[in-house]
């Protein structure tokens, strides 16, 4: 095969636009930092978790592909790998969360241990542990992402039958560790916002959300690439059909987790657990909950059932945009009621500024990583089969 699969040159312009949008958003967020510091940290946490969800979703999907193989994943392995290489940036973006620790987390404030329930949990919920755990999670993700991206890169240079088996062997433990660490991350970063409340399903819910975010994002990237050389002939309706099916599976899994938690909490009817749903069904929060049921489940579920829609990249991309927006609302829905202290639902302009700022910068970096390598691994043993298929 003589093709080099060089990324399209238009990516440079896309990167420029992303830097611009991200820069403007970051400036607005910085202004917000001085105007309303507590609100800045709250909005920033949601924006950071949203971007992290997209990047980790792509990372996990890449692991899934490298473990199970298949033409669907081979076509998007490079776009997924580019996202996993943005993880060091997201570790850097963790710093503002650490700076706002006392603003965000009531257990981190001085005198929090006066609360007997929090006092029981300080062995886990303490600033030092929070920092060290965060570093460990990121070290694991970045480490595996680096090794796997390096192996994939080697397939641009030489033929090797052993390489993809080694990828498989590395991806399996990486996936197990990802689920464990991302669940723990959900406990640290989101669930501990309300330190009295707990749910053992919370971590998995967060991980499944990453799957929705990752697939939605990579469908948009695949649509962009399918309209340009060199992927124009290679990315075909059958690939989008596969992505649509997997997206549908993750949408259903997200619903399954949410519904399981609701049914368990509702059946248990325990005072310290039901607060979660009481907070989210009071006042304006109720409408956000309804919007999530419709926008994160009912509508995408019904649309994704259609075979024609899944095979039409443009229509599928519209569902992906809807789900990406819903991912932000889902994280907001999990985080923000803890800040409202029983108050109503009020969006702040910083909610938008932080996600445009951080998301824009993240996306610019993503595009740069995407443009830095061929879009398909040339010497991957199964590449010919994947391209010839059908």
């Amino acid at each position, binding site marked *: 095969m003589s093709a080099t699969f060089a990324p399209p040159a238009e990516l440079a312009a896309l990167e420029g636009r992303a830097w611009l949008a991200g820069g403007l958003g970051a400036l607005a967020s910085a202004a917000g930092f001085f105007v309303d510091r507590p609100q800045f940290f709250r909005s920033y946490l949601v924006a950071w978790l949203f971007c992290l969800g997209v990047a980790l979703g792509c990372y996990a999907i890449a692991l899934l592909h490298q473990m199970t193989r298949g033409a669907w994943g081979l076509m998007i392995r490079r776009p997924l790998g580019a996202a996993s290489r943005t993880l060091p940036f997201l570790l850097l973006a963790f710093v503002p969360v650490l700076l706002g620790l006392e603003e965000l987390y009531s257990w981190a404030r001085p005198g929090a241990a006066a609360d007997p329930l929090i006092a029981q949990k300080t062995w886990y919920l303490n600033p030092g542990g929070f920092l060290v755990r965060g570093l460990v999670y990121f070290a694991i993700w970045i480490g595996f992402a680096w090794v796997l991206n390096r192996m994939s890169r080697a397939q641009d240079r030489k033929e090797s039958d052993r390489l993809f088996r080694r990828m498989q062997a590395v991806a399996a433990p990486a996936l197990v560790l990802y689920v464990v660490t991302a669940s723990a991350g959900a406990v640290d970063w989101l669930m501990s916002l309300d330190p009295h409340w707990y749910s053992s399903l919370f971590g998995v819910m967060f991980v499944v959300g990453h799957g929705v975010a990752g697939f939605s994002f990579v469908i948009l990237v695949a649509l962009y690439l399918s309209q340009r050389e060199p992927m124009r002939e290679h990315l075909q309706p059958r690939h989008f059909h596969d992505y649509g099916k997997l997206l549908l599976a993750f949408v259903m899994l997200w619903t399954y987790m949410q*519904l399981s938690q*609701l*049914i368990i909490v*509702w*059946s248990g*009817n325990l005072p310290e657990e039901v607060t979660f749903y009481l907070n989210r069904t009071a006042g304006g929060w109720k409408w956000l909950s309804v919007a999530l049921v419709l926008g994160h489940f009912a509508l995408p579920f019904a649309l994704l*059932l259609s075979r024609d829609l899944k095979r039409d990249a443009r229509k599928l991309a519209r569902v992906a945009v809807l789900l990406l927006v819903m991912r932000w609302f889902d994280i907001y829905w999990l985080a923000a009621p803890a800040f409202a202290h029983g108050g109503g639902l009020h969006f702040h302009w910083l909610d938008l500024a932080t996600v445009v700022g951080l998301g824009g910068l993240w996306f610019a970096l993503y595009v740069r990583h995407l443009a830095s390598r061929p879009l398909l691994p040339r010497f991957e043993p199964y590449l010919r089969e994947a391209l010839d298929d059908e």
Partner: protein
Amino acid sequence: MSRFLTRDGKRLYGLMAEFDSPEKLVHACEAASEAGYTRLGAYTPYPIEAVWEAIGHHRSKLPLIVLAGGLAGAAGGFLLQYWASVHAYPLNIGGRPLDSWIAFLVPAFETTILFASFAAVLGMFFLNGLPQPYHPAFNVPRFAEASRDRYFLMITTKDRNFEPAAVRELLAGLGPVEVNEVED
């Protein structure tokens, strides 16, 4: 009721050509489709996708039947519980409201799957016209070879363009082993 008769004076169901290779059958299917025939039947010892393409496949209605079954199961399962808990046998359980819809969701989900599965299996039988204890194709003695190594194409008299002489001429020109009349 067929308008045509066989040589023995019986009602004619169609004309059947026997081929000794799948390529010939695919070619024959394409030729018959091009000639404007739509009521075709192709019989092979194993599935051949190209045949399915050549005789003009149509979209299956099965997904809609399954969807209808699923919706009926969801509504039925939910309403059954609602009726039982709110109207037929109202019971105070732990101070919960009678209409505890959250508790109804799991059984309603189960009936959704149950009805959808039944709809899928029964719908498949219905759309395939099963059970069918009698089919005229078996009146051709050679037809038994369809489950061994022979490939058959039948054009039935149900076709609007069916004209015995023209059909026989078309089939004979496609390189068959033989062309047989199928008695109804």
